[in-house]
């Protein structure tokens, strides 16, 4: 096992966003230079973080990257990650786990927007809240998240799982508006409440354990199953998806 501990240093302009797509376990093998961007300025990892390495390994799946300090504006951590573990003690910025293929990311605080965007594999656990577009795709693409698992222990913002194509998203708290919009596969599970979920879905399964506010008029009620109301839709587009809800309001 190797543990790399990165602790954010205080910054002169702490409001500037940081892009850190090079922070993936694989990049800590050997003594590779790791660069980040703070606004439009290129920085070295050591300019922004104190770095501590314990242990030494040859393969990335045995690497744990631990991030401490105020990382709420650090974006793109874990992008294209294919092995290893990242644990973030505080909050994390946008696009955490973009395009992830394998490995494990855990966020102890809250996550910014686009958590696990266009994910293909691996798993992400967020103990706090996640922002908008959790597990979504990118503008204009026909497919969003294709595989892997995202679990959020509290609430998510709007458009969670937009264009969901494969894999699994599990929200323990509430979702905002339009969770599962344009879904075409995969499973979206919301334990709490949701507003206008699964809009325009064509396939896949969306389960809401709490109350659905403003369910769409184009979902066809198909009976009860295990205490859940089952709907087929979205009829507006000849969709063959399934929406299961506990209650509607």
């Amino acid at each position, binding site marked *: 096992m190797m543990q790399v501990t990165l602790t954010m240093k205080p910054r002169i*302009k702490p*409001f*500037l*966003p940081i*892009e850190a797509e090079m922070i993936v376990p694989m990049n800590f093998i050997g003594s590779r230079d790791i660069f980040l*961007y*703070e*606004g*439009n*300025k290129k920085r070295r990892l050591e300019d922004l973080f104190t770095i501590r390495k314990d242990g030494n390994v040859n393969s990335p799946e045995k690497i744990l990257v631990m991030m401490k300090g105020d990382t709420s*504006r650090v974006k793109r951590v874990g992008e294209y990650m294919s092995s290893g573990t990242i644990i973030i003690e505080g909050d994390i910025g*946008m696009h955490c786990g973009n395009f992830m293929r394998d490995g494990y990311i855990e966020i102890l605080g809250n996550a910014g*927007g*686009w958590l696990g965007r266009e994910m293909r594999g691996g798993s992400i656990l967020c103990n706090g809240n996640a922002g*908008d*577009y959790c597990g979504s795709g990118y*503008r*204009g693409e026909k497919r969003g998240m294709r595989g892997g698992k995202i679990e959020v222990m509290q609430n998510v913002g709007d458009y969670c799982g937009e264009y969901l194509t494969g894999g699994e998203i599990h929200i323990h708290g509430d979702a905002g*508006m*339009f969770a599962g*919009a*344009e879904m075409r596969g995969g499973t979206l599970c919301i334990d709490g409440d949701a507003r*206008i979920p699964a*809009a*325009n879905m064509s396939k896949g399964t969306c389960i809401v354990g709490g109350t659905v506010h*403003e369910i*769409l*008029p*184009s*979902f*066809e009620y198909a009976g009860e199953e295990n205490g859940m109301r089952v709907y087929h839709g*979205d*009829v*507006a*587009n*000849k969709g063959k998806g399934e929406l299961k809800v506990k209650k509607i309001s």
Partner: protein
Amino acid sequence: MSDKVRHVVCPYCGCLCDDILVELDEGKITGVENACTLGAHKFLSDSENRLKGPIMRDGSGWKDISYEDAIDYVVDLLSKADRPILYGWSGCATETQAIGAHLAELIGGVIDSTTSVCHGPSILAIQEVGHPGCTLGQVKNRADTIIYWGSNPIEAHPRHLSRYTNYADAYFFHNAFRERQVIVVDTRKTPSTEIATEFVLVKPGGDYHVLSALRAILRGRADVVPDIVAGVAKPQLIRIVEICKKTNFGAMFFGVGITMTGGKYKNIRNAIEFVDELNRYTKWTISPMRGHSNVYGSNEVFTWISGYPYAVDYSRGIAFYNPGETTVVDILARGEADAALIMASDPGAHFPRICSENLAKIPTILFDPYPSVTTHLCTLQIPSAVNGIDAAGTAYRMDGIPIRTHKFLDNTGYPTDTTLLKQIYDRIREAKENA
């Protein structure tokens, strides 16, 4: 000595009316004909309000500053900034907008236009499902059914109906006004709902639901739709679908009533998909009611240069687009920027309060011929010639038709924003090359 200038292009709104007549007397605008009150006001009050020259903050007041010193300040600020934002652009000519796009790339900043608080969602929807549209002359000559959804043209685009829709002259009709029907969909009564042949009153936030219901009915699944959808009774929904299917040519127009409420771009997407499906039965088009005279121009220019229509982030030396992240309104809400260049727009008046608070904290340069709410938030204001009055350039109408605005006042003494921006660009580029 009075002069009449004809076929002037009004630089106010997305209608870009080009039949304006302006009367001049001794280099001052004394009369305007054909324009609506918004356009007339733009021309007639122009000279009263202009700043005489650049002004810079001086303690709690202002001091006059030369154009040279003003440019020096801008060059210095933008060259060093870590996250500069260049916002506005919708009143500028495309020639100016093009320099802006190159400037954003040069300084590694973010360029965005008023699109992001107006019809940005329309573009997001178009990026999902495309845009089945046409030029306004097609509508005027052919449309027998017009739908205004979330739009109040009588107040916001006053000449839209007389130039392009309901009241306009039409090749294929003998008596167009009598042969057309206008459906207006809104959450409240407006002057536009008053002239509609059919008014659909929707509960606020319910537009998406109504559109889903219409699509389901169109697909033959009226059985699934409940009796009332967002306050609209099912019989009315069914009637609307029948009207839409039976028309010869239907044209839908939509405004910020649905781009800026509820699902925003999801509303627009739903409307576009409804129109797509209608095209299997008869001819239908859908188009956004763009607000500013050249906001569409900013989308066109930014696209052919950067690849993206607004919210373009060049901080990584490559164009990156992600509305919600790279839109200036969101960047300001998060307080991320450290310098701002505002071109010909008034975010102080239109952005959420937190954005204005954050704008006031950073060095902000405002290019605007007139004082505005943003003046009170900025560090330096630079007046330039007014596009369409003492500067000419290309503007793109709401339907994409490019028209050249006129310069009918000479010798006002103001440099154009194109000239000023070019100087700024050249100086920053030279400094980078010599570094």
